[in-house]
């Protein structure tokens, strides 16, 4: 295995998660997910390295964004964190407890604190259940009887997410996309979790509705001091929601930093290319502006490039990049980058 993060002792190296003030709510170390697939005429087995050794941490009340293009492993990472997928390797520590190998019943207790919101508000709600039942489900499954009863609590939750409490007896199909996403959020909030993994929660929504939901999530985050792992491909949305951002490429974390670091002074060429590719209304009239254009597509995770995985599309690639995999190294307070030739200075 070429992933140096798997090697014992590497946790102590500078690649390890940056030391932060108090102990983080969630720590992920060397997290990996390999899917076996059959390939070719002879059905030879191969491994899709969807996530291949990822480290990060999330503090209480902090919002961490995971961005990257399709196939970068951000969704798989999110699912491993909430244990919808079993990790192939690595460690997930939540509130000081290693939950990587927790079984179902151990996880049940953890569901109070750890929730997920999905992208598609249409398919993640059971069409045969009323909104009341959907939102009450986490309470009932966990045998919780809040003061004033389940119904009262559910109605409070509906109100919290901006729905009418009288919608209690309606069915999901009676709601618009944005309202359905609110139902999903109410369900996630029912147990008063400490961490919510939100997987592309607004990408299926219309522009005007998307803004409503982002604002709602921001309000909830402040009100309940929620921590988020916010997975999205839309860099502008992530910028508005997340305090820290991790940029992923082909199963690897290539850069982590706070909002200013990632959006104003990104060090990884890939981060710069991503930002440059986003068509932004505010860039109007700058059509002649220098844009970074990446060639080709993301390579297949079945057979990722040696060394730095981004090197095949990187304009700065040197022979070294093919030979040595760059470790995720600290370059400033809280900013880490995995690149042999990082960029410096503010974005052009």
């Amino acid at each position, binding site marked *: 295995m070429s992933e140096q993060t798997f090697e014992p002792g590497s946790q102590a190296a500078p690649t390890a998660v940056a030391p932060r003030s108090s102990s983080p709510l969630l720590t992920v170390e060397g997290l990996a997910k390999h899917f076996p697939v059959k390939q070719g005429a002879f059905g030879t087995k191969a491994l899709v390295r969807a996530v291949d050794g990822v480290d990060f941490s999330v503090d209480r009340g902090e919002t961490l964004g995971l961005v990257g293009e399709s196939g970068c492993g951000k969704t798989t990472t999110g699912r491993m964190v909430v244990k919808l997928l079993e990790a192939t390797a690595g460690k997930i520590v939540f509130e000081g407890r290693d939950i990587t190998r927790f079984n179902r019943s151990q996880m049940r207790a953890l569901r109070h604190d750890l929730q997920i919101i999905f992208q598609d508000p249409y398919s993640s709600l059971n069409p045969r259940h009323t909104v009341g039942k959907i939102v009450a489900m986490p309470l009932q499954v966990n045998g919780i009887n809040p003061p004033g009863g389940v119904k009262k609590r559910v109605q409070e939750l509906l109100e919290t997410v901006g729905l009418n409490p009288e919608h209690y007896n309606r069915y999901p199909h009676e709601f618009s996309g944005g309202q359905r996403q609110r139902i999903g959020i109410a369900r996630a909030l029912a147990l008063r979790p400490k961490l919510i993994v939100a997987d592309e929660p607004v990408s299926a929504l*219309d522009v005007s509705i998307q803004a409503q939901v982002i604002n709602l999530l921001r309000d909830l985050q402040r009100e309940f001091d929620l921590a988020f792992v916010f997975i999205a491909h839309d860099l502008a949305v992530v910028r508005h929601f997340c305090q820290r951002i991790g940029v992923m490429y082909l199963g690897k974390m290539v850069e982590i930093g706070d909002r200013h670091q990632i959006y104003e002074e990104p060090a990884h060429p890939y981060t710069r290319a991503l930002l440059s590719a986003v068509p932004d209304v505010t860039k109007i009239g700058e059509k002649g502006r220098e844009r970074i254009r990446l060639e080709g597509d993301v390579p297949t995770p079945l057979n990722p490039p040696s060394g730095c995985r981004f090197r095949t599309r990187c304009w700065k690639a040197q022979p070294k990049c093919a030979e040595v995999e760059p470790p995720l190294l600290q370059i400033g307070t809280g900013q880490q980058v995995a690149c042999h030739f990082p960029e410096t200075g503010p974005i052009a």
Partner: protein
Amino acid sequence: MTATASSAATSEVQDDRPYLEVDDLRVQFKTEDGIVRAVDGISFKLERGRTLGIVGESGSGKSVTSLTVLGLHNMARTRVTGSVRVNGREIVGLDEEKVRRMRGRDMAMIFQDPLSALHPYYTIGRQIAEAYLVHHPGQKAKAKRRAIEMLDRVGIPQPQRRYDSYPHEFSGGMRQRAMIAMALVNDPSLLIADEPTTALDVTVQAQILDLLDDLQREFNSAIIMITHDLGVVSRVANDVMVMYGGHAIEFGSVDQVLTEPQHPYTWGLLQSVPSLRGNAEDDLDPIPGSPPSLINLPSGCAFHPRCAYRMIGGGPCDLEVPELLPTAQEGHVVACHLPENERRRIFAEEIKLGAE
């Protein structure tokens, strides 16, 4: 209703009239729930070499407009009135066979999701060659050569080999390139792109938008870019039409509509989009409520229930459908009951866009 957004600036096109003229187009179809007025009186013109961006949310009628231009709507259940002239030829009411002959030759279309828009059982090459063969019957060898040439032109490496690949063997970006190759194989003068990059990653999106730019310059085609993404519009369009509830509510050059918008809905759209600039700590400024149902549009201005400025004008916002009227700026038309000086004042004083 006269949206005169023709652009005198690009008069290098020597045709007397714009390649595409849409006049008071109305499209209705019956459903079990009632009559859907998907498009309700749209007019615009588009010249060769120019790109028109049509912006709107789901149910705004933007996709139906484009399907009607190609005559791809369900003829049996749809009622189309008004006029669509392609290269001077009226499409509305034209014999289906005649429209068919124009499809793919005079006007072509690329769609949002190239994986579902390509036939899963046929090779990419065959599908492109087929598009050529429809309009050049019998020229099989030429069709294949042409398909390979187009694959090469849209930047697919090893086009000879890739000719025999199936869509599922291509990446998302490659598939959309193949779709573009297929659409352009007959050198159509009008290309309609319906959310062509929505399903793609940003770096690939940038490649595809660049490609469309290049091809437009090369073939001098007119492009209609339908999208919900204002960023994409700002990047590719010359003119922009903003649609809401089946109506065009603002039309103008990209600078006019995106930097000096006069319709409250356009303001709302621009303010709701998160940007890479500006203060990220500020809350976004979303439009309250949701887009209306096309079956049961609000009375008067369809936007009035969500409009923060509807009272200020004291006008007939909930009674009369506002007409698309010229503003002080040439080519910029807006359908709003607020007086223009009031709109300008509100925009200057109250509307804050991402860039600041």
